[in-house]
């Protein structure tokens, strides 16, 4: 095939181009021609098509996401905000932490192992690119019904992929979620979070400036995998009858990424780069246009210099390839030899492919022929913006309140509790998490199933960070504005429960098709809620990710905003764990229970959804967080009440160290009775244990923060006794732990 150069494009303006097949709309193609003053070359068309895809350009979400800027709270901690590869916050003692969550949903449906693996790989490179050493990962996952055949197809592969890649990188996996719901059948959600740490002075940015500086591609060679991944896969719903899309999924090589990490960190330590960007979605198209656009604007690239795994690749394919484990650095010529020496030490291929130029054009040649000549900003940032139609969905008018049994006997309490804690969403997740290395690096202070993951940052001072990811998609379905707020508050509570102070927020917004006005309404309401709550809580959003088109036919997934909150703890040795540590402790509940059954797991196992999500009480939640932080020395254990309510929390707290409890529930004082006390999911509650001699001090502190304290009972023994329902821990454990192995082998 002959090369479509700029000269050819100018000479033959009417050549038919496959813009539609590349996912561009007619007006978008017209806009490209308007920008260039001619038709694009095929290479330019490839670049615009991937960069203007929903995944890269945020064209449907941009008009809403700007609220995160407009409503941003003042934060002294924020060092780098939204827009870079990942946000960076100051955690004190000269340390900066960067963290971000991203989705890899569509590739994981097509090819579960590689989709999930490269999802981990991509987010880790985003963190590395900031100049940070990656220190931990987390993975919130969502699947269709646990017993559905397709779930059995995708879940084992996704879990093995997350583990296979993360384990091989030496990154402890310290938490996440595994949630099952019918709407995720055919649309599994694979979100991956990574956190990294560096010194303040080591922060790196994705920018290309300094005329004459060199553009160096380093890491794996470029192959034919993942071509068009972002445009074809992430921005279109799956339709039956189309050709298999497997080739659009990238293939990961975690070993290559591990050496790339060590090599990059050594390069950073010697301050050898001006700017750096990883190659993820949209590959070289993205890296070159973003680096140039963030710098002075000019860059020339000789595309034939890109080392290829497959020598038959065309220039268009080289530009679109999403081959993994590649980075692009801008370096001063005087530092090239040192840079190359470090790459050689780690056996990392590094090649100068171009340089920063004067002017404002990104020019790419292939064997001397000019095939791309574009203003980089038009590729990277001036993509289309859509203000898509929004309409409140009609399903909201036909919701019915829950109608659940009252618990009148010990037998009912026991059978309902066992049914709940053995249901796939509440059951023990060790089958999944035991496939992840939580120990590597030797700094994991807390990992699943604790309320948040916690990592030690400094061995001398014991400074650490805690991270939690949360979403309650059913609440978001009932009320996306409050659902987003509740997810963030739960995440903050999980952080404070372990003894850390919430500091910053990242988010991964998973939704159906933006072309459906009802979905767009869910999205708009979610963003509005999230921006409002972040302002109200004074927490900066440091970055995030939007995943649309999680939809099969007309069925969209539940709106699933996954919120990640990062917290700081000054002394990790003081962290609070969730498990009951000893007998003869007082069992208390902080916060009041109401009959919040809508969207609860208990309603879910009874096949009901309900009508109203709880209304967040932000002022109370702030007082609760402050109480948890101040009361920390008095707490023997603490566990957030969320999915599955008190029943799930008691199960997890007793089974952790196999120490039982005797619980007395004053059902008559709670709206909804004993059933609500056990199974309602009223937000803003914590299960704690305290030594009897600290009880008065705890109650005084709680009174100071105006948080109600309810006496539930005492710890000890080998049974969980709830009113007169006796559940031996052996039986409880069997019910809680058998479900996932039974389903997945």
């Amino acid at each position: 095939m002959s090369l479509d150069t700029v000269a050819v494009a100018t000479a033959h303006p009417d050549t038919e181009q496959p813009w539609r097949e590349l996912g561009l709309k007619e007006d978008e193609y017209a806009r490209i021609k308007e920008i260039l003053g001619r038709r694009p070359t095929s290479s330019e068309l490839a670049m615009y098509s991937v960069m203007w895809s929903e995944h890269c350009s945020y064209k449907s979400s941009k008009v809403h996401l700007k609220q995160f800027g407009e409503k941003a709270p003042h934060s002294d901690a924020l060092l780098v905000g939204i827009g870079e590869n990942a946000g960076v916050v100051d955690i004190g003692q000269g340390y900066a932490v960067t963290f971000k969550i991203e989705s890899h949903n569509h590739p994981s449906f097509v090819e579960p192992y590689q989709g999930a693996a490269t999802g981990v790989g991509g987010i880790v490179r985003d963190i590395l690119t900031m100049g940070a050493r990656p220190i931990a990962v987390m993975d919130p996952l969502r699947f269709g019904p646990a017993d559905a055949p397709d779930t059995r197809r995708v879940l084992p592969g996704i879990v093995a992929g997350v583990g296979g890649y993360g384990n091989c990188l030496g990154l402890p996996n310290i938490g996440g979620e595994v949630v099952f719901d019918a709407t995720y059948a055919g649309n599994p959600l694979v979100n991956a979070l990574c956190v990294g740490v560096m010194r303040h002075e080591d922060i790196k940015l994705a920018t290309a400036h300094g005329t004459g500086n060199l553009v160096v591609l380093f890491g794996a060679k470029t192959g034919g995998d993942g071509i068009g991944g972002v445009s074809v896969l992430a921005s279109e719903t799956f339709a039956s009858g189309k050709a298999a899309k497997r080739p659009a999924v990238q293939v990961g090589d975690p070993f290559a990424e591990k050496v790339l990490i060590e090599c990059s960190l050594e390069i950073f330590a010697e301050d050898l780069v001006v700017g750096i960007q990883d190659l993820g979605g949209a590959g070289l198209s993205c890296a070159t246009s973003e680096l140039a656009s963030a710098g002075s604007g000019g860059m020339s690239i000789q595309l034939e210099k890109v080392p290829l795994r497959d020598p038959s690749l065309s220039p268009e394919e080289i530009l679109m390839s999403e081959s993994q484990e590649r980075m692009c650095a801008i370096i001063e010529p005087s530092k090239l030899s040192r840079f190359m020496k470090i790459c050689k030490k780690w056996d990392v291929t590094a090649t100068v492919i171009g340089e920063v130029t004067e002017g404002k054009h990104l020019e790419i040649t292939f064997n001397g022929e000019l095939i791309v000549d574009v203003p980089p900003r038009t590729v990277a940032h001036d993509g289309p913006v859509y203000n898509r139609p929004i309409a409140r969905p009609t399903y909201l008018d036909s919701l019915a309140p829950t109608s659940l049994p009252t618990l009148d006997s010990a037998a009912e309490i026991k059978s309902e509790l066992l049914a709940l804690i053995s249901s796939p969403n509440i059951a023990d997740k060790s089958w999944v998490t035991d496939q992840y290395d939580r120990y590597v690096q030797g700094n994991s202070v807390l990992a699943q199933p604790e309320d948040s993951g916690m990592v030690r940052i400094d061995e001398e001072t014991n400074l650490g960070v805690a991270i939690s990811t949360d979403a309650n998609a059913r609440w978001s379905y009932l009320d996306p504005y409050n659902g987003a707020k509740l997810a963030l508050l739960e995440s903050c509570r999980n952080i404070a429960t372990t003894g850390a102070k919430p500091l910053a927020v990242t988010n991964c917004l998973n939704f159906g098709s933006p072309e459906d006005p009802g979905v767009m309404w869910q999205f708009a309401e979610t963003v509005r809620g999230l921006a409002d709550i972040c302002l109200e809580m004074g927490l900066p959003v440091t970055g995030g990710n939007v995943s649309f088109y999680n939809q099969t036919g007309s069925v969209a997934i539940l709106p699933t905003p996954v919120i990640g909150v990062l917290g700081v703890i000054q002394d990790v040795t003081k962290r609070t764990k969730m498990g009951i540590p000893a007998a003869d402790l007082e069992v208390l509940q902080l916060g009041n229970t109401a009959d919040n059954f809508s969207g609860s797991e208990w309603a879910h196992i009874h096949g009901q959804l309900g009508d109203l999500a709880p209304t967040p009480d932000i002022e109370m939640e702030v007082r609760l967080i402050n109480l948890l932080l101040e009361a920390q020395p008095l707490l023997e254990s603490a566990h957030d009440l969320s999915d599955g309510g008190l029943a799930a929390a008691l199960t997890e707290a007793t089974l952790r160290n196999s120490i039982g409890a005797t619980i007395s529930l004053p059902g008559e004082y709670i709206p909804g009775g004993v059933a609500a006390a056990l199974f309602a999911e009223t937000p803003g509650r914590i299960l704690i244990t305290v030594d009897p001699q600290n009880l008065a001090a705890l109650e005084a502190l709680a009174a100071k923060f105006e948080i109600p304290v309810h006496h539930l009972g005492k710890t000890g023994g080998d049974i969980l006794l709830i009113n007169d329902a006796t559940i031996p821990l052996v039986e409880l454990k069997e019910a809680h732990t058998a479900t996932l192995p039974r389903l997945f082998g």
Partner: protein
Amino acid sequence: MRIGVVTFPGSLDDSSALRAIRLAGGVPVPLFHASDDLKEVEAVVLPGGFSYGDYLRCGAISRFAPIMSSIIIAAEHGFPVLGICNGFQILCESHLLPGALTRNQGLHFVCTDQPLTVENNSTPWTSGYTKGDRLVIPIKNGEGSFQASAETLHELESEGRVVLRYAGTNPNGSKNDIAGITNARGNVVGVMPHPEQAIESLTGPSTDGLTFFTSVLHSLVGR
């Protein structure tokens, strides 16, 4: 007392092994695979990880690293060597230890707090334990199932060269519940569990692993 830890491309628990040596009171010395210089260390740890991605057999490529030629020669002269997980696999590939580590019986990567029994406390790495001690140390591997011929197993058992055995449930199908072995001379030890991740109660399930590192320091002093 200088104890080396080798970093191969893809080593992951090298930093934890260096920390364990430091907390045990030794001087940790990082060694790099591409050099044959042992930097005057008196014992060496081959840490866990996925050297060279483990895309061939685990440890099969690392066995040819320049540093291994020095280690193999030193080991034959009684130099204490501890291989942990991937390090154990490298020792088997190097024929410093018999047998092989194969894919776990359940075919999954398994990370769990593993109960173990100490079977041999006469090696420099286990001399601080008492025979029969029960330990809890993390295992985390995908290919930890120890396999050997009936002849080799008989030799290991009859010569008391099984160092650690899985207690309770065998997590991976290892023959005779074997979690760790030593060579005939007793200076080279390979274990699948990660003692370097059971050093501090803050980050590990126990501190049971520390004795591996204090043991070697004591045995070197006494030598």
